[in-house]
């Protein structure tokens, strides 16, 4: 009985802290830190237990009637654990980072409250068992990220917030309409491995296609598919931990995860191919991959370059989804995890440079490797991972995506991957070069010293940890519970009914 409520506990382990943090007075710094860290650890443990159970074949489910004709369902399946695991792990590290980052800053109570609420929404997105529950948490994520984007309260932040809302609220409306069309056709749409729409008569296929297009448009806003990506670079005005967790992981991944759910667990990959839905998705994904990289080249602000890199990299997931065949699926799913870990490392590093040296522009990074060797090493690992250098995590993703392209009989996709990798190298290697091989140009724009290390330990520990994960996910890809093994487990369940 208690075990079947596990998804609810996982959700509560960030929802309850969110409420408690809102109620804590601003000055209660110690209590807030303790609460944050305890909750993050508790969530990791709960997700680990849940993942273990799911691997054994258990399905945890909580449901009740929400409105006539639709249930509220939380269910832990293999796919849910993939996203919940990623969020839980990165929430823990980012919380550590954020505690250090916001030392002495105003409005911390508000910040951490909404931060926890975001993670709760992400958990809800991971664990949703049907489309309407997914929509519920998807919109909650929009609402809880807005205060974080505008956190600084400057005109620039508020302008970014307005752009963010225009995109996400409109996207939410498209998603709502798409879901409503599906419900009006077939009733409550639950997420089922191999999908649930095959029995829809052929006369209703046009509506299915419309619903698909509406839902992908709605999800594509958060997944930053071109041309719906405009909000992401602007949202970089948010504080570093927000950029790291939300705009590298939670928000964009929520969109990508939604696409995965719609294709595999609503339509079913084979039925989606039958409806000829995969090719348009693949074209959009390829266009996004290339356009994001090209735009990244032109950026001189470090965070903006990383943001356009995110636009490009997240679409690898959509690409993997749209390649019909198990190897492409594995590549897409594993990249959901790998991209998150690598990109969060890069954002931590960008935050470290900005907070320690006051550096925001790439041209000011000359010689930073000597001043901040650990951060620079972590950055180099993340950048090489993104380019796809073996044996790092990114290599594993690209390897399977490439194999998937052949398996699907679309070798031209391999060309897209190669061009994209070259572009990745073209915008990451100059930064690495500046870090290690250029002399220090003079005084740093705004230097701070933090104790014994090159920067605050609150910053360094998460940076080192995620960099190690980037290496580990590639080196130990064959170990049980590695991202790759888990993606293979899901793929087996998706293709073999």
């Amino acid at each position, binding site marked *: 009985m208690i075990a079947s409520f596990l998804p609810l506990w996982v959700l509560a382990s960030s929802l309850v802290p969110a409420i408690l943090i809102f109620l804590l007075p601003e000055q209660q710094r110690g209590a807030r830190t303790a609460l944050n860290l305890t909750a993050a650890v508790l969530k990791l443990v709960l997700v680990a237990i849940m993942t273990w159970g799911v691997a054994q074949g258990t399905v945890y489910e909580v449901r009740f*009637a929400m409105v006539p*004709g639709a249930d509220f369902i939380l269910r832990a399946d293999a796919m849910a654990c993939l996203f919940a695991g990623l969020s839980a792990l990165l929430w823990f590290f980012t919380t550590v980072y954020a505690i250090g980052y916001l030392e002495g800053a105003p409005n911390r109570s508000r910040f951490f409250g909404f931060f926890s609420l975001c993670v709760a929404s992400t958990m809800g997105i991971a664990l949703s068992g049907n489309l309407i529950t997914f929509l519920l948490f998807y919109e909650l994520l929009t609402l809880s990220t807005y205060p974080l984007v505008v956190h600084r309260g400057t005109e620039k932040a508020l302008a970014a917030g307005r752009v963010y809302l225009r995109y996400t609220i409109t996207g939410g409306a498209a998603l709502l309409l798409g879901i409503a069309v599906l419900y009006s056709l077939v009733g409550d749409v639950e997420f089922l491995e191999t999908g649930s729409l095959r029995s829809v008569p052929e006369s209703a296929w046009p509506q299915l296609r419309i619903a698909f297009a509406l839902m992908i448009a709605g999800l594509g806003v958060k997944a930053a598919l071109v041309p719906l990506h405009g909000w992401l670079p602007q949202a970089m005005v948010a504080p570093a931990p927000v950029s790291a967790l939300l705009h590298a992981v939670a928000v964009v991944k929520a969109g990508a995860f939604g696409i995965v759910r719609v294709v595999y667990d609503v339509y079913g990959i084979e039925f989606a191919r039958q409806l000829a839905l995969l090719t348009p998705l693949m074209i959009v994904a390829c266009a996004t991959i290339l356009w994001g990289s090209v735009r990244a080249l032109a950026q001189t602000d470090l965070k903006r370059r990383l943001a356009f890199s995110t636009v490009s990299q997240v679409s690898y997931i959509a690409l993997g989804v749209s390649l019909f065949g198990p190897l492409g699926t594995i590549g897409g799913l594993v990249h959901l995890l790998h991209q998150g870990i690598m990109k969060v490392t890069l954002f931590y590093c960008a935050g470290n440079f900005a907070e320690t040296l006051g550096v925001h522009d790439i041209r000011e990074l000359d010689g930073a490797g000597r001043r901040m060797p650990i951060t620079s090493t972590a950055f180099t690992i993340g950048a090489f991972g993104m380019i796809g250098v073996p044996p790092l995590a990114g290599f594993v993703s690209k390897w399977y995506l490439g194999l998937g392209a052949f398996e699907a009989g679309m070798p031209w996709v391999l060309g897209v991957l190669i061009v994209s990798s070259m572009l990745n190298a073209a915008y990451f290697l100059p930064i690495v070069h500046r870090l290690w091989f250029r002399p220090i140009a003079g005084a740093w724009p705004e230097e701070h010293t933090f104790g014994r290390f090159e920067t605050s330990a609150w910053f360094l520990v998460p940076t080192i940890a995620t960099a190690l994960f980037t290496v580990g996910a590639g080196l130990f890809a064959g170990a049980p519970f590695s991202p790759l093994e888990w993606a293979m487990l899901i793929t087996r369940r998706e293709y073999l009914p």
Partner: protein
Amino acid sequence: MSVAPAATLLALMQSGSTVAASPLIALALVIPLCWAVLTAMRPAPRQTLLVLSGLGIWNVASAMLWWHTRANGVVNYALGGWSEPLGIGLRADGIASSLVLLTAVIAGGCGVYRLCTPDADLRGTAMRWFWPLFFLLGAALNAVWLAADLFNMYVGLELLGLSAVGLVAVAGTTAALSAALRYLLAALLGSLAYLLGVALLYAEYGSLALSSVASGFAPTDTTIVALGFITAGLCLKTALFPLHGWLPPAHSAALPPVSALLSALVVKASFVMLLRIWLGPGAPLLVPTVAQGLGVLGAGAIVWGGWQAIQHADLKMLVAHSTVAQLGYLFVAIPLLIDASDTARAFAWDGLMLQIVSHALAKSAMFLASGTLIAAVGSGKVVDLAGVSRHMPLALFAFGLAAVSLMGLPPSGGFSAKWLLLQAALAGGQWHWAAVLLAGGLLTAGYVFRVFRASFLQGAEDRFTDTPLGWDVVALLLAGMAIMLGLLSTGPLDVMRFGALLQRGIT
């Protein structure tokens, strides 16, 4: 439950047996009336114990009536033992009992908010008439919800209009007095048109009970003219676009708890009457052209009200225009209520009921929270809210929760209502209403986020006046209920399906 077959839903709607007289119905009228008299005996701005006991008893009795209806179905009661057509016939069906309870809950919230008001804000000669008028308003609302004939509805409506105008004027400011005067004119004109229609109907059918008019109904010219007058009068009272001009000044100039009551409940009273008449006796005349026409006016309200709310510099005017827009959703539901598809009608009914209830909870919370913010900032302008996100987090949070429901974002009653109406529109193939519903949500987001945007700007540090904690608690509770309704709507909706109101409209 997966999609409930429409047949089951319809069967549920017509169930609800009629049980012998229950004094609980009479209590719903008697209790607020008693307290109106008691508070008028020694009128004073603060009568804490008396008022609290009244609100408590009122809430308990209303909850018991709701529970009774839930268990036993529709209850009829002849006040004083006289049966129709002589006596005052009362009828507690699902919608009436639910609205009686909703009235008690919101009045409870607004009453407590008022009791927490600091003494300094209670000065003014008119203030001591607040409580008698407040309880009178409650009694009038319950009279409308429970009325079983056209004349009782008229009495309730007239009483409601007068007490509402009085409550607006209690604020005592020039703006309030001039708004009250306009409100009075609109209210009188509306009741007059309604009364004229009722008189014509009486001449035609010799009875005013909804059931007798329905049984002898014939679409004669007199009937059509009568229904025209009734509809015009009630639409004016519901502030349906383009007859809404009186609402924003009246609702924004009143005291916060009064604005909350007016926007949440008073405008709904005339709408529920409209619904009872058109889905009851008037159902044969509710042809698609009429229904679509009302829907178009509703769509106009959504767009115009939303657009006005985006433009206004004044916070309470923004919230008041939001009421104009939200009332539009009620009228958009009407063409869906007569759809050919059983599923569409069932969804439309549920969606409409949920919209009435969740808008009432959310809007009352929003007006109360706005009142708190304005009191703290000392200005009614949206731009002056800079910094409240730090200094008034609870009031802003209550405003935010209410806004979530009004925007129709999940989880909230507003979302579930929109979802059900959307399902109705799609099931009936009436796509244009789906588009209106979605556009309304976007417009709502447009004006509520203006408030958040202003609140996140960094403001000066120490220009905030402290406000009572009770204000925040009340607003949070009401907004929280609007949110919870999104997750737990099936139980309340089951009750609201009880009743013969739908006999002709829905079957």
